[in-house]
């Protein structure tokens, strides 16, 4: 019996192949975008986990000397006093044009690192003697290994899948040679097992500072907001995809009512039918989900390199550009597909199960369901209010997203009522009979189209909102770059001594030399980079201060005050007039806050004299050089020749700006790609809705046709209707999008990145989006319109015939 019933149910899809295709595509699109985002996120998280495991970040405390490297003797002092610490020497290692992170750990004392365990458990386990003694071995990811092999002069390379793509791991004994830092230690990791009594750190090594994991840069935490962003997009796409599923399933159920009634009349219980339909839907969801996974894998693979670039540019987090297929990801994708499909079919299934056995087919063509519309709108208002309330009362990033979600879904729920109102207004003012009919007919179509239009509204609002945010950001960022990068050349010396030489050599040749000295300190909100600056008009004229006390520069330059960046200001709620403790006992008043985009960490600036007091050992390797711009190129070449500096050690302002802008653009490639995809899905939702409405269209159109409108006229009207509805939706999406971008700029950005951006509007972008929307609506309506144009009159006539 089950088999017979299933056969009957499935026969529907054989007869409605396009519908089946639509349903599967809907499920696939929903699952695809969602799982693409999931794949990207989990790939990134896996990379962080790898990196954190390698660096022991987030787990163990560290000892560092803010003024420079730690000598081996200090390490031995600590060890012989009982302190269980492990030495790490690390630094950038130049590979042609690119720089990788070389990390040397004491492989004897360090806790088992994943990469080392992996190497040891491999078939060709390295001999510890080879690892620890010259020439040693180096471990690198399979991405990096070939590049290293080209290098030639390196120790033998072992490939490891447990390493981030831009990290070289080796024994500290090998690292000191490769980095040419014999006897230096960058930091000491405090191991978890300490003996019962150890003397205080200040008694053994007073110059060392202990950093707890909470004050270290935690990639996971930093990038959390970025991934939340992506996830929000993923969910949005998922929701939009479900609109398609909802529409298609609703239609299929409506069309199968007769069949189901017949089967019930023949003695099949409703319960059995519901179970079988659920099984059928689950089966379809699994197929659609599998297609979606394939799609998602493809999309994620295409987007991942850009995401990786973004994360590197924005947070310095390293993410592998290669996708790997994770079983739990696939399982989650299929589960989402099934859950989503069942969710989207719930209403239709419920209605079906409540259907009395003897109701007529009743495809209701005109349903002025004003109370339902008003109820939906009310729900929308409640959602908006709820989101706003959540944000106002709780605050924070999550509440920010709740606000966004409330605004978006609320506005979407308000859409049917708004559109219906607008259409009623038009209908009242319409003069000709055709116009009157067209408006009335549009209103009649609204219930069937409103889900698709909601999807369109969401996609458009997201586009406008995110677009406005990105463009505002870009505008602000470019202006900021101009303020911030004022020197014509930026020079990096090999070491302090060369820095000194370069400085002396440059002195008579240029307008000014601005040393860029920095030292890493700790603050309760995270790492704090302290910069020393010399008194130069360029700072007073150009430095991008957001807010400042009077006489800010005089106070800073005389060593009485400190400037901090916006991130630190917002995170620690520090503003001019407050004080900042830079080192124990060393407190300065904050005189100003400056904007500092694209940097995740806190920053502060003091006069050079102050820096010398706080961190006497800070290296002097980097300089900004001010000079007439036209001489800069020649000077750069001269510098490189004179001091045998590699190209990248002398950088032009223009090159630096270009690079910064390139990073910026890369950052938002993913966002805009997802934007376009969402819009595409919304367009597809309109198409499926129109196709769904198709069978209900004939009774609407046939009488009009019979009364003397030809099919080409009707087809044109069909196109116009779709475009008009899309246009109206777009008009309503604009204010929503602007609200969205305002929330993004003033709420989400502040929470996620630590900076607040001014909002700029870009009407030309809106126009472009508007045209794109109309185009999408036109394309979506093209297929039904074409069908109408080619429709044999016999089909229209059949509407009137009794055989129907």
């Amino acid at each position, binding site marked *: 019996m089950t088999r017979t019933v299933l056969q009957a149910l499935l026969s529907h899809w054989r007869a409605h192949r396009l519908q089946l295709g639509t349903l599967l595509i809907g499920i696939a699109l929903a699952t695809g975008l969602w799982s693409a985002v999931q794949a990207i996120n989990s790939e990134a998280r896996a990379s962080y986990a790898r990196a954190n495991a390698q660096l022991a970040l987030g787990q163990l405390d560290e000892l560092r000397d803010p003024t420079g490297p730690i000598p081996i*003797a200090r*390490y031995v002092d600590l060890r*012989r006093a009982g302190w269980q610490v492990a030495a790490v020497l690390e630094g950038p290692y130049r590979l042609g044009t690119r720089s990788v992170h070389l990390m040397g750990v004491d492989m004897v004392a360090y806790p088992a690192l994943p990469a080392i365990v992996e190497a040891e458990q491999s078939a060709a386990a390295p001999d*510890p003697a080879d690892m*620890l*003694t010259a020439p040693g071995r180096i471990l690198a990811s399979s991405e990096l290994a070939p590049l290293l092999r080209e290098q030639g002069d390196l120790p033998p390379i072992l490939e490891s899948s447990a390493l981030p793509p831009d990290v070289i791991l080796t*024994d500290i*004994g090998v690292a000191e040679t490769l980095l040419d830092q014999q006897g230096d230690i960058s930091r000491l990791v405090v191991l978890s097992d300490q003996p*019962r*009594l150890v003397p205080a750190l200040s008694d053994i090594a007073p110059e060392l500072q202990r950093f707890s994991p909470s004050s270290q840069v935690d990639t996971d935490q930093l990038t959390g907001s970025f991934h939340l962003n992506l996830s929000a997009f993923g969910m949005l796409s998922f929701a939009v995809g479900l609109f398609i599923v909802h529409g298609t399933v609703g239609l299929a159920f409506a069309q199968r009512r007769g069949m189901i009634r017949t089967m019930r009349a023949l003695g099949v219980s409703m319960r059995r039918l519901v179970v079988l339909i659920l099984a059928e839907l689950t089966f379809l969801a699994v197929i659609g989900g599998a297609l979606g996974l394939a799609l998602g894998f493809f999309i994620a693979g295409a987007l991942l390199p850009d995401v990786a670039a973004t994360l590197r540019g924005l947070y310095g987090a390293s993410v592998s550009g290669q996708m790997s297929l994770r079983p739990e990801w696939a399982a989650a994708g299929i589960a989402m597909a099934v859950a989503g499909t069942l969710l989207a079919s719930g209403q239709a299934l419920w209605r079906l199960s409540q259907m009395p056995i003897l109701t007529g087919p009743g495809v209701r063509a005109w349903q002025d369901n004003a109370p339902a519309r008003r109820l939906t709108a009310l729900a929308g208002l409640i959602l908006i209010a709820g989101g706003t309330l959540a944000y106002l009362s709780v605050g924070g990033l999550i509440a920010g997203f709740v606000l966004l979600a409330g605004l978006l879904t609320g506005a979407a729920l308000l859409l049917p009522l708004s559109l219906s109102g607008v259409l009623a207004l038009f209908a009242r003012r319409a003069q000709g009979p055709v116009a009157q009919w067209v408006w009335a007919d549009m209103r009649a179509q609204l219930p069937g189209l409103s889900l698709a239009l909601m999807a369109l509204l969401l996609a458009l609002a997201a586009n406008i909102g995110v677009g406005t945010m990105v463009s505002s950001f870009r505008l602000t960022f470019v202006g900021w770059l101009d303020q911030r990068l004022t020197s014509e050349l930026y020079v990096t010396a090999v070491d302090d001594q060369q820095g000194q030489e370069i400085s002396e050599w440059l002195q008579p040749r240029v307008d000014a030399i601005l040393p860029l000295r920095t030292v890493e300190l700790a603050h309760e909100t995270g790492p704090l980079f302290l910069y020393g600056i010399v008194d130069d008009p360029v700072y007073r004229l150009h430095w991008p201060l957001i807010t400042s006390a009077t006489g800010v520069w005089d106070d800073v330059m005389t060593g009485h005050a400190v400037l901090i960046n916006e991130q630190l200001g917002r995170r620690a709620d520090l503003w001019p007039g407050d004080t900042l403790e830079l080192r124990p006992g060393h407190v300065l008043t904050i005189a100003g806050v400056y904007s500092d985009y694209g940097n995740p960490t806190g920053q502060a600036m003091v006069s050079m004299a102050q820096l010398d007091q706080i961190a006497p050992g800070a290296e002097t390797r980097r300089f900004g050089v001010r000079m007439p711009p036209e001489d800069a190129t020649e000077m750069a070449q001269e510098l490189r020749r004179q001091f045998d500096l590699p190209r990248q050690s002398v950088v032009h302002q223009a090159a630096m700006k270009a690079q910064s802008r390139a990073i910026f653009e890369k950052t938002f490639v993913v966002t805009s790609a997802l934007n376009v995809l969402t819009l595409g899905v919304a367009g597809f939702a309109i198409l499926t809705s129109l196709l769904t409405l198709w069978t209900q269209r004939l009774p609407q159109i046939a009488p009009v046709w019979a009364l003397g409108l030809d099919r080409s006229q009707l087809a044109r009207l069909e196109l116009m209707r779709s475009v008009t509805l899309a246009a109206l939706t777009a008009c309503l999406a604009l204010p929503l999008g602007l609200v969205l971008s305002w929330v993004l700029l003033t709420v989400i950005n502040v929470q996620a990145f630590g900076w607040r951006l001014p909002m700029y509007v870009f009407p030309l972008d809106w126009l472009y989006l508007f045209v794109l929307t109309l185009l999408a609506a036109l394309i979506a309506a093209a297929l039904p319109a074409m069908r109408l144009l080619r429709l044999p009159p016999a089909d229209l006539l059949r509407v009137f015939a009794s055989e129907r």
Partner: protein
Amino acid sequence: MNVRALLIAIMCMLPVSSWAQGYAGLGGSADGFEIPQRGYQFEFPKDHGPHPAFRIEWWYLTANLTADDGRDYGIQWTLFRSALKPFETEGWQSPQIWMGHAAVTTPETHYFAERLSRGGIGQAGATAEPFAAWIDEWQMSGPDFDTLTLTASGKDFGYDLSLKAQGPLVFHGENGYSVKSSDGQASHYYSQPSYNVEGVLHLPEGDMAVSGNGWLDREWSSQPLAEDQSGWDWFSLSFDDGDKLMAFRLRGDRGDFTSATWISADGSSMALSDGSTSFTPLETAHVAGRDVPVAWRVTLPDRGVDVEVSALVPDAWMATRFEYWEGPVTVTGTHEGRGYLEMTGY
């Protein structure tokens, strides 16, 4: 004699699990390492210090102690040296790896800790004169080998002891040339079996004044095991009448290989050849997921010894990177006394 400790030292210098495979290879060539020579003339104090040209070496002290309340305790302090290559250099690239094991066994429980270091930087090492052997803050040192202070600590225990030798050094086997298998694998092996020990144990329940006697083994070699040998049982027993016995059994596929040294109360010693001592497990305990014999019958008919040796606590398991059983024992039967037992390969 701690034969298995040779392996432990090698295996533990890195968390190298795959190294277990390299174990069979130890029986083979010595890769440029020196090999113990029959008839070697010890030279002191120099030989109290390290021998970097040999693959493995240790300073291995165990002590049976009694607290003021009359209860028995045991401590272990071991420094292993393992060479990846037969030389020493300054800096991180030193091929000498050092490992420390320390333990306190109370009548109720067993505490232990482990340390790892490499040579070349001063974090661990040994010197002959003045004598010192150390890793991190663990240290055994003194003006000479007869007068030592000893310290070690772990997360929840520690000890500070002073040691005073009561007799001469004892050389095992053939004047310190100790054969380990019928194939002729051997080590240089001598002991100071009679230290008077005094000091304090630091335990979670508080400090505890203790006294007793200690036994220090010095051994170095480069090729200690025969290929078929899988583990051993090693006994150092001090009888109440002043006589002492060091005896071990190497368990091998081709049969056990035993060896022993009888140390008279006056300090004179006599090596006892393979087969002169017999070992019979009487009772096992389930420790760390395996069955370990914690009561033994040891007989040495030549000396009229027929004793039962039983562990103070069965749970004296060293769950270090390479695991073994090491703990104090009490002796009853023809002779009464105390001692230490080490068992590996279970």
